[in-house]
């Protein structure tokens, strides 16, 4: 069995076992191909299996490298409701992410392809976009939800950026 099939199988087992999602998700959710969550130091940290109902992205089942269930992150605001869920195409849209990152870009910087990773701790999912200056200098811009920002250090704090 291919690794991606094993990851999807683990996600399906989590849903079927009742430890991921609600009744709506379990009854109508469809699993899409896993997406690698990149480790900030390189390599793969874990896998995210999108769960859709129709075109809406209701959540992501996170599966570890050894096929262990890590969590189900839901975009639902209410149990058994699609309210607040983003369209799958929008959440994974590279154009949307790049346009948000563009607000943080300096003049003449070129933006690279967004990569799904996390900001220092795996709970904080972000898209990382590399901004390359004409001098060759490369820096990262992070996009979380509708917010773009430059990465900082957690520096011994809860949340980041000590006073």
């Amino acid at each position, binding site marked *: 069995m291919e690794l991606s099939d094993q990851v999807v199988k683990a996600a399906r087992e989590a849903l079927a076992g009742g430890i991921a999602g609600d009744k709506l998700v379990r009854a109508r959710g469809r699993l899409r191909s896993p997406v690698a969550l990149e480790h900030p130091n390189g390599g793969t940290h874990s896998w995210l299996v999108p769960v859709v109902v129709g075109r809406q992205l209701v959540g992501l089942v996170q599966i570890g490298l050894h096929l262990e269930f890590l969590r189900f992150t839901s975009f639902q605001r209410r149990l058994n409701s699609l309210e607040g869920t983003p369209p799958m195409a929008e959440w994974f849209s590279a154009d949307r992410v790049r346009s948000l990152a563009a607000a943080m870009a300096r003049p003449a910087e070129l933006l690279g392809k967004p990569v799904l990773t996390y900001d*220092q701790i795996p709970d904080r999912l972000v898209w990382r976009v590399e901004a390359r200056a004409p001098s060759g200098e490369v820096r990262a811009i992070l996009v979380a939800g509708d917010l773009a920002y430059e990465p900082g250090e957690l520096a011994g704090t*809860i949340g980041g950026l000590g006073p």
Partner: protein
Amino acid sequence: MAKIALKEARELAGLELNAVVKLGVIPATEVSGARIGATATTVYDVNGEPLFYRVPLQKRGGRPGFVDLAADEALGDSLLATTFGAAWNEAAIKEQARAEITKRRRSLVFDATRIVAFSFPKVAVQLLSRGQEVAMLEWGSWADVPPAAVSGRKAMEPGNFERWSMLGELPVSQRRANEQAFGARASVWKETIKGPAFRGLELVKIDPTKFPVERTMIKLVDNRELHYSTDDATHHPCYELIGQATNVWCVGASVQMVLRFWRYEYTQDRIAQALGLGTRTSPNGLPYSRVGDVVTQLEALTSNALDATMVTNPGFDLFRDEIRGNRPLISFIPGHSRTVAGYHSCLLHLPGQLPFKGLLVYDPWPPNVGTIHRYENFNTNTYQYAYHAHLTLV
């Protein structure tokens, strides 16, 4: 610290595994006929002591699998985890680590390798030369595990991807409690197997048809989420997600969620001001040296109507008991804060963990939106602090 010999670890795990199969928690088809292997990988703690054994489950024609068995009573339980669908091949893993390091640092010299739980339960391959580490690579990602941080952080408060010693950092009181729990459980089994029904039984073989413990009725699932009252039957779930207003205000948003549950209407900016988190244009996180401020502000912002408590290294039972009492909690994990509004505890088999314990987490990340983790695997996270509060004035 009491170490456990592999033979004893295998037998205790065999008893536990037989029991859960007998009870139908794990499908019998999955493991029936399997044997807990005689050869094991000793997985070492960062401090160099044996921490647990990883042992292949051998079953002809069955899916590959392995079990993790405690090598130290400080872990509190004999059977730590059961994994199906993935094989554990120590030789192949070490070979891959050697290949990876050779690709990156051709000149590196090493004469030994061993498996180390660099951040329990995450494991890595440690490469040594004359007994001294020269490199450590995380299993699977093959990322270099950084050396131990020299910062003066508190015990059991590791950062992400930080190596830390489970045995070295476990608080003494927790270690004692775990050792007692382990000893009590082991004693029960030792008494049980003295019975005639166990005579001649191969304890490391999983065979529910022969295992002489009568089927017991047990509740397979225990879960709850916050409701308008403790009357779940007639009252709706009652908790709202609030996103953090900046990329570093997770604590502010978490406090806001809890206060909102108790019907206190504060803006996140106002809470941030009280907690010293700066302003929206110049925000900062909450330093570890001020984690106690959360207690102070939960009480101050409610004029002491709430009596708040901070718990270090909270266990699952704390979260469960508070949710049963219909009270939300704030949960700090390394570098991040979220709130907990429910739990789900079951004995269903899942690859990797047994039994499953999960939290319903209202996470203020990403900013302005937030997400809900329904559920987060309690066994795969490090919980540093929890805050709970109850009403004192009515």
